[in-house]
Structures are given as structure tokens and as C-alpha cells.
């Protein structure tokens, strides 16, 4: 346990906790409302902002935040009109964002340090100021979700009915995609823009098989996420592997196991329910 003495390891654990809270809460909406592809589009478009950060000399994470929010609003706007199929639009925003990033990085003078970390994550190199940003965004996410919990539940369950009963579904949808954009920013430093979609969905997808309410799904996802991040981080340290990728691979394995467990559990419950 002597590794816990290192300040970078302490920061990594705090970052892991913030990442887990974000994944558990927002990942739940992403999974139940089937917004995985939208989230993928938003996260990949962040690369444009990272490239811009390098080019103009600002913090790439700030650039990423501008790009994720802009692409979230664009996707939200497109989904409200029917002419262009939503998935087509998402695919375009996804690739254009990446392409902009490549061009911006190419135009930047000299060498782009830590580029690999933004793409695939490097939770061990999170700085104190980045932790502050992640903590602030996590707080905003928790606050908004707790204020709009019942409205977001009804939006996820049956959007049309929600609208009929007086929920302003139009702007609520924008709130949800912007929350996803903010989560992407929280997750970038930990697992990178290419891998973060897995951490956003896997804990929620595991939990969903075992719970019957949205709030319990969030809670279980947060707990699972903490376990996966900490265990993955420890494994990556012991095996000397990339931390982000190790966390994702571990999550994938646990997900596969959970599908088996969930099936066994269902069979067991069916057998118990059947008489004789």
C-alpha cells in the first residue's frame, strides 16, 4: 500500500471517484434512453477542441468543453427536426470533430505533448487544477440531476406522454445532452475520448440487469464504477499497462460475467416461482 503515499496516486484515486460518480449518474440515462451513439459523437468531437487548445495555447480540456457542448447542442437541435436522420448527423459531427482535431494538431508549432493521454486517458497524470475542474463539473451534474430527477425520468420513460402532461421535453432534452457533454469532459483525462464511451455505459449496463428503479441503478453504477476504476488502476500498476485501457478491459470482462450471472439469477427465480 506504499503506492498510496505518492501524491499522483492520491490524485488518481480522487479523479477515479469523480469519474465514477459521473459515469454512474449520466451513464444511467445514456443506457436507458439509448443515447450511446450520441455520446460517442459528443466525445469524439472533443478531439477538435483538444487540437484547438494546442493550436492557440489554451488548456486542451477547456477546448474540449467548448467542442462537446457545441456538438451536444447541434445534435440536440438536429434531433428536433426530422429532415436529416439523427444517426447520420451524429456520424458527421463525430468525424468532422476528429478531423478538425487532426488538422489543428498538425498546424500547431512543434510537438503536441500528452496527445496520447487525451485519446486513451492517463489518470496518473491528472493535475490538481484539473481535479478542481472535474470536481466542479461533477457537482453541477449532481445538482442538475437531483433538481430535475422526476422530469428526466419521465423524459427517458415516455417522451410523448411527458410532453402531454406538461413537461417541457424540448429544453429538457438539451439539458440532458449538455450533461453528457460535461461528463465527457470529466472523463477525458481518466480514460480518453476514444475509450470513455465504454466507462459511461458499462457500469450502467451491468446495474440495469439487477435493479428496478432509476435511482438505485445510479447508485449501483457509481459503486461498480468505483470498484472497476480502483481495481483497474491497481492492475495497471502491477502489470505495468496503460491505466485507461486496463480499466476498460476489466469493465468489459465484468460485464460479460454479469450477463451470465443475470441469466442464472433469472432462471433461479423462475424455478422458485414455478410450483413443484
Amino acid at each position: 500500500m506504499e503506492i498510496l503515499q505518492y501524491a499522483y496516486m492520491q490524485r488518481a484515486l480522487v479523479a477515479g471517484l469523480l469519474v465514477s460518480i459521473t459515469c454512474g449518474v449520466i451513464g444511467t440515462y445514456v443506457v436507458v434512453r439509448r443515447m450511446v451513439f450520441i455520446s460517442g459523437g459528443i466525445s469524439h468531437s472533443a478531439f477538435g477542441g483538444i487540437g484547438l487548445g494546442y493550436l492557440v495555447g489554451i488548456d486542451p480540456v477547456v477546448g474540449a468543453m467548448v467542442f462537446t457542448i457545441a456538438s451536444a447542442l447541434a445534435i440536440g437541435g438536429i434531433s428536433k427536426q426530422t429532415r436529416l436522420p439523427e444517426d447520420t448527423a451524429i456520424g458527421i459531427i463525430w468525424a468532422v470533430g476528429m478531423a478538425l482535431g487532426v488538422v489543428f494538431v498538425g498546424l500547431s508549432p512543434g510537438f503536441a505533448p500528452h496527445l496520447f493521454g487525451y485519446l486513451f486517458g492517463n489518470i496518473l497524470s491528472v493535475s490538481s487544477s484539473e481535479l478542481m475542474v472535474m470536481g466542479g463539473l461533477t457537482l453541477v451534474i449532481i445538482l442538475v440531476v437531483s433538481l430535475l430527477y422526476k422530469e428526466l425520468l419521465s423524459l427517458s420513460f415516455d417522451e410523448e406522454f411527458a410532453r402531454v402532461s406538461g413537461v417541457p421535453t424540448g429544453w429538457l432534452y438539451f439539458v440532458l445532452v449538455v450533461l453528457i457533454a460535461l461528463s465527457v469532459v470529466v472523463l477525458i483525462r481518466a480514460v480518453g475520448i476514444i475509450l470513455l464511451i465504454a466507462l459511461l455505459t458499462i457500469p450502467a449496463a451491468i446495474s440495469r440487469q439487477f435493479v428496478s428503479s432509476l435511482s438505485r441503478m445510479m447508485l449501483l453504477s457509481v459503486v461498480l464504477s468505483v470498484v472497476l476504476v480502483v481495481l483497474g488502476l491497481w492492475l495497471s500498476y502491477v502489470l505495468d499497462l496503460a491505466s485507461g485501457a486496463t480499466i476498460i478491459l476489466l469493465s468489459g470482462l465484468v460485464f460479460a460475467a454479469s450477463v451470465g450471472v443475470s441469466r442464472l439469477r433469472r432462471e433461479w427465480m423462475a424455478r422458485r416461482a414455478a410450483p413443484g
Partner: protein
Amino acid sequence: MASEEVVRLEDVWVEMDHTPILEAVNLSVDQHDFIGIIGPNGGGKTTMFKVMLGLVRPSRGRVTVLGTTPEKGRRRVGYVPQDSLFDRDFPASVWDVVLMGRLGRVGRLRRFSAEDKAAAWNALETVEMQRFKDRQIGRLSGGQQQRVFIARALVSDPRLLLLDEPTASVDAPMMEEFYELLNRLKQRMAIVLVTHDLSAVSVYVDTVGCLSRKLFYHHSKEISREDLEAAYQCPIELIAHGVPHRVLREHT
């Protein structure tokens, strides 16, 4: 009998991509009505409901709901859509689902009040589903889910109940119970149900109509053979199979 009009459609047309979905629909529903409207799939039944709910804007005509626009009036309209549950594993309990019907009443950023919860409990009692309160919605049978969605529509204390294909998921033995429930509800509100299943228009419905782009409705208990043939565009023998005789007027 003094009675109040809850919905009025005047010369309503709906077009999508230049294809007419509804043509010159006129309908007046008053507070004591219990109307069953039959029509083929794609005949515009769901669209007509969406017009009443302000979800689809007609290209022509006037819609009045409870004396105002559909957007304002719909808060007092209980809507039971077809196939409400698109995801059987959705993590929500029966209680969560029923409370969703109160969202128009409770202030934004507020918690549900004791009054909201009492209304939800009463609605569950009306549909006799209190004991399933904590059950996950997807773990119920089709007929039970249907009852929960009716409860969700009832918690807003509606003046009008709109049911879209309500019997599609109800097993035959439960059908009678289902109509008994509607029969009790019609004391308190107007009811309009639409279905493509002619045999589902039961003896409980007070008046029947027929919708296939155009609405054939004469505020009567029977549909004429001509209307039905016009709506389905085929000889009556092909479709009247199994229709209760009292619904279909004998050709004279």
C-alpha cells in the same frame, strides 16, 4: 340534458409529405360520451388523438380542447398511448409510472406532495393495481400494464380519456373486466377509444364511428354498411366477420 363539449374538431386536415392522413374531420365530444372509433391500420386514428393532444398540428381546421387550445387543454386529458412500454427492462416501478401523470400539476424543481401521492394511490385503487405498486413495470402482464397506464392517465383528474388500441395487449378473459373498468370511468369523464379490431368495440361503447382518413360518425350506436365499406374500401363480408350484430346495422 345540459352537457359540456370537451373536444371539438372542425374541418381538420393533416398532411405529411403531401399525403393526406386526415381529411375534413369533424367531431364533437361531450362530457358524457363514450365513443368507440374503428378503422384500418394507417387510417389516422393515432394521428387524430395527437391532433387533440397538440402533438400534431393540423394543416387546416380548428381544434378546441376544453374550450381552449390543445396545448393548454391537454393537461386535463388522460392519454393512454398504444405500446407504452418500449423497453421491458426499464428500471421504473408501477408507482414511479403512475406519478409521472402528475408532472403537469407539480411545480418544476418540487417534490411530489402528499396530494400527488394520494391521487396516485386513488388511481391505482380505481384500476385495482395497488398491490403491484412496487413491482417493476416490465414484470407485469400486458393487461396489467394497460391498467397502470390508465392509472397514469387518471391521476391528472382528466375530463377526457383517450385510449389508443387499448385491447391489443389485453387477453380475452380480461376483456370483460377491462370494459367494466371503462364503464365505471365513464361516469366521471368522456372516453374515446380507437381500435382496428372491430370485435373490440364492445357493448359498453355508447356510440361508434369509423375512421379512414375521413371520419364517419353520426353520434349513433350503429355504423352503416356504406360507411364501413367506404372506410375499409372493400366489401363488408370481408371485414364484418365477427362484428357484434348490434354494432353493424343490417342493410335494409
